[in-house]
């Protein structure tokens, strides 16, 4: 008799726990394919190599771990900028709280609508980039999402969007288990900025598939909300055509478990991609994981990964970043840096930077550092009368600032900077 393997049992449990929504035949086929692939690969378990530093148990366990709601006094993120606001409550689109789905240069519809139409461009994207991103490393939580998600947005930029779309994820129920799947298509020459903010749900699983056409630009800035007890698993799958730009930045403060995966397939020549983030963690129940996989299969493309973390009181940070340069992908310029500032001996940073290169005319570099606050710089500030806690925060912000600078928008980066400053100020005692 076969010994039951928890990996495969759990994948069955996961698929059974969510009701797969209805839709057009092509959509149901895509979901069925994803379900079959999840059954074949199994759910993530701690002993998987790709989950060595992050225990996936709380992402797959039932009942859903409870997450207390946090009363927040500050203004919601991105409220101060002119944007189209779209709101999800516990992973369900809320039309009442949202602006009309109309924006010049952009077509927007709910996922369920797009996936129930017999003919829709979404057919060529839904589950396609996700499936493509399952090689060479398996991403079961993304397959699960494709198989069962009924909520999300289908967004197509046909020109230069006049303002950003901001998607806010409100967490409103202590045991909500959300699956959100967005499709984003940026047509040739078009550009769009998507802002995401908020914790989303007690447990939040999101997938965004982004297809960036020739000379198109996709900008993404995300903050993951201050609710601490949440468990968050996100995937971004991007495909870059000739001369396109892809930029994504994420700020994370708090969170028991966050894993953000970003998988980019650079198929066009002369593209530019930047994936970056900052995270600030406090406490032994903080765990944050950035996992990035960029595949270069074209000529003269540039990619940057810039991640900074500040960790204290036993917090844990993880970075797994890979640059894969395929045969013939000449003149690739791949850069990767991951750095952590540990404020005490109890905090941990695990980094697994990887380069795999099959072309000979490329520039690729990676670096990873762990350090403490620079004592000389600290003393200099103190000697001018800046109080210890404030001086330390200034140095932390300076450290994180190098990643925040990757955001190609001064107002947004200032906003991120200010939020981090406030977060740190609240932690002074």
């Amino acid at each position, binding site marked *: 008799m076969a010994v039951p393997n928890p990996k495969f049992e759990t994948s069955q449990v996961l698929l059974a726990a969510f009701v797969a929504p209805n839709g057009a035949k092509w959509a149901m086929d895509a979901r069925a394919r994803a379900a079959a692939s999840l059954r074949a690969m199994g759910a993530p378990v701690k002993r998987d190599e790709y989950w060595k530093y992050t225990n996936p148990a709380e992402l797959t366990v039932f009942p859903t771990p409870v997450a207390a709601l946090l009363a927040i006094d500050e203004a919601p993120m991105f409220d101060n900028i002119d944007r189209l606001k779209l709101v999800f409550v516990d992973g369900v689109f809320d039309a009442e709280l949202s602006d009309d789905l109309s924006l010049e240069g952009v077509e927007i519809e709910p996922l369920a609508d797009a996936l129930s139409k017999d003919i829709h461009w979404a057919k060529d994207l839904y589950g396609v980039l996700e499936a493509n991103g399952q090689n060479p490393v398996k991403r079961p939580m993304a397959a699960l999402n494709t198989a069962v998600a009924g909520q999300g947005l289908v967004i197509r930029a046909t020109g230069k969007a006049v303002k950003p779309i901001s998607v806010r994820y409100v967490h409103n129920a202590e045991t909500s288990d959300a699956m959100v799947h967005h499709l984003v298509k940026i047509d040739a020459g078009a550009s769009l900025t998507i802002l995401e903010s908020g914790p989303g749900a007690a447990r939040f699983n999101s997938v965004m598939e982004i297809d960036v056409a020739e000379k198109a630009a996709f900008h993404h800035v995300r903050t993951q909300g201050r609710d601490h007890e949440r468990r968050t698993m996100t995937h971004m799958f991007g495909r870059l055509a000739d001369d396109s730009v892809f930029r994504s930045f994420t700020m994370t403060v708090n969170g028991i478990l966050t894993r953000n995966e970003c998988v980019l397939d650079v198929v066009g020549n002369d593209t530019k991609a930047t994936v970056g983030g900052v995270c600030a963690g406090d406490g032994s129940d903080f765990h944050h994981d950035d996992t990035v996989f960029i595949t270069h299969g074209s000529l003269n493309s540039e990619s940057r990964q810039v991640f900074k973390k500040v960790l204290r009181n036993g917090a844990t940070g993880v970075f797994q970043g890979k640059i894969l340069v395929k045969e013939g992908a000449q003149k690739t310029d791949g850069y990767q840096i991951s750095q952590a500032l540990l404020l005490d001996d109890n905090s941990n940073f695990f980094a697994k930077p990887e380069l795999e290169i099959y072309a000979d005319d490329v520039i690729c570099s990676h670096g990873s550092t762990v350090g403490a606050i620079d004592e000389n710089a600290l003393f200099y500030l103190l*000697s001018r009368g*800046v109080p210890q806690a404030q001086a330390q925060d200034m140095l932390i912000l300076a450290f994180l600032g190098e990643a925040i600078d990757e955001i190609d928008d001064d107002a947004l980066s200032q906003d991120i900077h200010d939020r981090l400053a406030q977060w740190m100020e609240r932690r002074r005692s």
Partner: protein
Amino acid sequence: MLNIKNLQVGLEEEDKQILKGVDLNIGEGEVHAIMGPNGSGKSTMSYVLAGKSGYKVTGGSATLNGVDLLDMEPEERAAAGLFLAFQYPVEIPGVGNMTFLRTAVNAQRKARNEPELTASEFLKEVRTKAKDLKIDADMLKRPVNVGFSGGEKKRNEILQMAMLSPTMCILDETDSGLDVDAMKLVAEGVNALRDGKRSFLVITHYQRLLDHIKPDVVHIMANGKIIKSGGPDLALEVENNGYADILAEVA
């Protein structure tokens, strides 16, 4: 003002004594100079007074206006009126010069229960003072000391001193790295702050700075001790003859 008695200091990490009983008394409004061979302990003394970690005070005392300095945190010493112009000013990437200076000025004001400067009050003051020191606006915008030349760093120290208006100023080799004109500027900056109440301790290797900033007393430090004190002439003697005679004299 500043009273140092039999101050003995070693390193925290290793068993090494650097200051071996320093005595120094600087009264209100006085300017004292310290000269001495490399490695004699001049910077160590100024660091210890400012509160740098890594040193172990093994004996003696240091008070500022009667208050025990060595018992205070570095930022408290600054708020109490102590200022150290570093021999090697520290570069701090990512922290803007203006942000830093404004934070420092207002933190000290707050600690002294004085009203904080508004952004425009601060800006006005810093612009005037920077102009006097020929520090251009562009330098003010850059991160603290990053990419500054040696001389620019030293002028930036004096700008900070002028903005913070301390009562006891220690200048550790502020003249090194300065060109002749910059030295004059810096000396003028210092002299402008001499108001009969503020005191200065000027550490230098060269008589030239003391032509501009006239000291009341000159001390020679060697091997962790003040071995000789005298008037301005003592600096001239060092300039002309070096330390050999003085060292021989006290040996």
